[in-house]
């Protein structure tokens, strides 16, 4: 499998060194793919009035509260029509916790139709769901936690333009059907198939807006560096990354004093003590540089690796600040060894700072802290 996974961090047990092994050793590998789960259109709707459908969906808890497209056999068949010959729409691809819902391409198509997604984006949803089912994402915890975490889908490569994803201005925002409906389709899968409905399956205290839809695209055409998947050693025309994190934390730097100044602004956002990542030194950070920030940083001689190392060096606080804020009883040995005045990095390894370009014109970037005890997965696009 040409796939990459990053190291995850530890959530509530406060930054122990072995967090990488913890997330990578979790149970939950997908079931063997020789299983099938046949889904038939055997539910009868009394009429085709959208109001009737919406009332039913609301009563059954099938949606996110927004209007839904009726998943008729004709629409679902159109979504599946692009599958290559021999690809089984009823093959079980994985099981999603906490419900243990069995994922098939047909079931993904049903939810994609409901979300309003175009048929050609189904492989992106399939790839994202299969990535989320990997043990290192810790989807059971992601779905069930009181934290507001939501999976973010990042589309890379040729698929961005071919399928109409917006990597430019407003990539995190509204206005692009592919971004909006793909992210929404994933959320519907999590609610309907995985059982992550507010309450028993999703205990998020406040939720967050990205639980409606959370999908962007990497702006490779305006990136001074190679694509993110390429930087991981992934050789594929198109790819999908999933990372489970908080909403974006904005970073503005309009002064343009220096590339270092922009990166210091980002480091200052990373050193918030309120984030789930703050007590978890092994957690991932995704840094999405706006193209203008990226251009000025690169013009200053920074490679992607230089950015990672710079942020690792600058995103630090005195160890005493962490000790006042969190229980330190499970800190790793190196964290215990620090003197109160020593600067402790918010993240223990520059590789855990994931850098890419997203968005359009303007002097804004953003940081997405993870949930902590989870690791991102990047996979080549596949049906």
């Amino acid at each position, binding site marked *: 499998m040409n796939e990459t996974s990053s190291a995850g961090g*530890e*959530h*509530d*047990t406060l930054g122990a060194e072995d967090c990488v092994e*913890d*997330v990578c050793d*979790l*149970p939950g590998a997908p*079931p063997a793919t020789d299983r099938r*789960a046949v*889904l*038939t*259109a*055997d*539910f*009868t*709707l*009394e*009429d*085709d*009035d959208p109001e*009737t*459908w919406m009332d039913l969906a609301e009563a*059954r808890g*099938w949606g996110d509260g927004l209007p839904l497209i*009726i*998943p*008729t*056999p004709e629409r*679902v068949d159109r979504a599946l029509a692009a599958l290559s010959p021999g690809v089984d729409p009823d093959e079980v691809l994985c*099981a999603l*916790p*906490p*419900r*243990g*819902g*069995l*994922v*098939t391409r*047909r*079931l993904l198509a*049903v*939810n994609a139709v*409901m979300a309003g997604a175009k048929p050609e984006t189904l492989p992106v949803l399939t790839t994202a769901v299969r990535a989320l089912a990997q043990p290192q994402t*810790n989807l*059971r*915890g992601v779905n*069930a*936690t*009181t934290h507001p975490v939501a999976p973010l889908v990042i589309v890379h490569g040729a698929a961005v333009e071919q399928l109409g994803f917006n990597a430019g201005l407003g990539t995190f925002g509204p206005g692009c059907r592919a971004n909006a409906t793909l992210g929404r389709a994933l959320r*519907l899968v999590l609610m*309907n*198939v995985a*059982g992550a409905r507010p309450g028993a399956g999703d*205990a998020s205290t406040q939720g967050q807006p990205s639980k409606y839809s959370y999908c962007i695209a990497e702006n490779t055409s305006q990136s001074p560096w190679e694509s993110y998947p390429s930087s991981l050693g992934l050789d594929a025309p198109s790819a999908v990354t999933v990372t489970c994190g908080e909403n974006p934390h904005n970073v503005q730097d309009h002064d343009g004093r220096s590339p270092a100044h922009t990166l210091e602004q980002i480091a200052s956002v990373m050193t918030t003590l309120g984030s789930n990542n703050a007590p978890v030194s092994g957690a991932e950070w995704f840094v999405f540089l706006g193209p203008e920030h990226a251009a000025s940083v690169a013009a200053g001689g920074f490679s992607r690796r230089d950015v990672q190392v710079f942020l690792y060096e600058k995103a630090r606080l005195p160890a005493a600040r962490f000790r006042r804020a969190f*229980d330190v009883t499970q800190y790793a040995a190196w964290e215990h060894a620090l003197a109160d005045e020593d600067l402790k990095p918010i993240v223990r390894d520059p590789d855990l700072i994931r850098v890419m370009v997203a968005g359009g014109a303007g002097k804004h970037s953003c940081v997405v802290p993870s*949930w*902590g*005890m989870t690791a991102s997965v990047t996979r080549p696009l596949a049906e």
Partner: protein
Amino acid sequence: MARISIYTPEGQADAGAGATALAPAGSLADRRIAVLDNGKAGAAHLLERMAEGLARRSHGEYVGLHRKGSAATPCEADLLTSLASSADLILTGTAD
């Protein structure tokens, strides 16, 4: 307005992922009661007081607390195996 057939969006669930039936409780007299701490703040304190009170009232025995590796991940299989052989009743909790 015509009746139409539609798909439902939930699909099937893995039979192994459902709830597991608890063993019959019976009397707790002379039974071993343990605590599995989920690692959340205050969980150990609350669960230990509950276990001690339960043991006192039911004439059982509180046999100790065990903590799983992280609140955010499932309990380690070897710890569950150990608990199953060393206790008759385990108190635990989820979330905060």
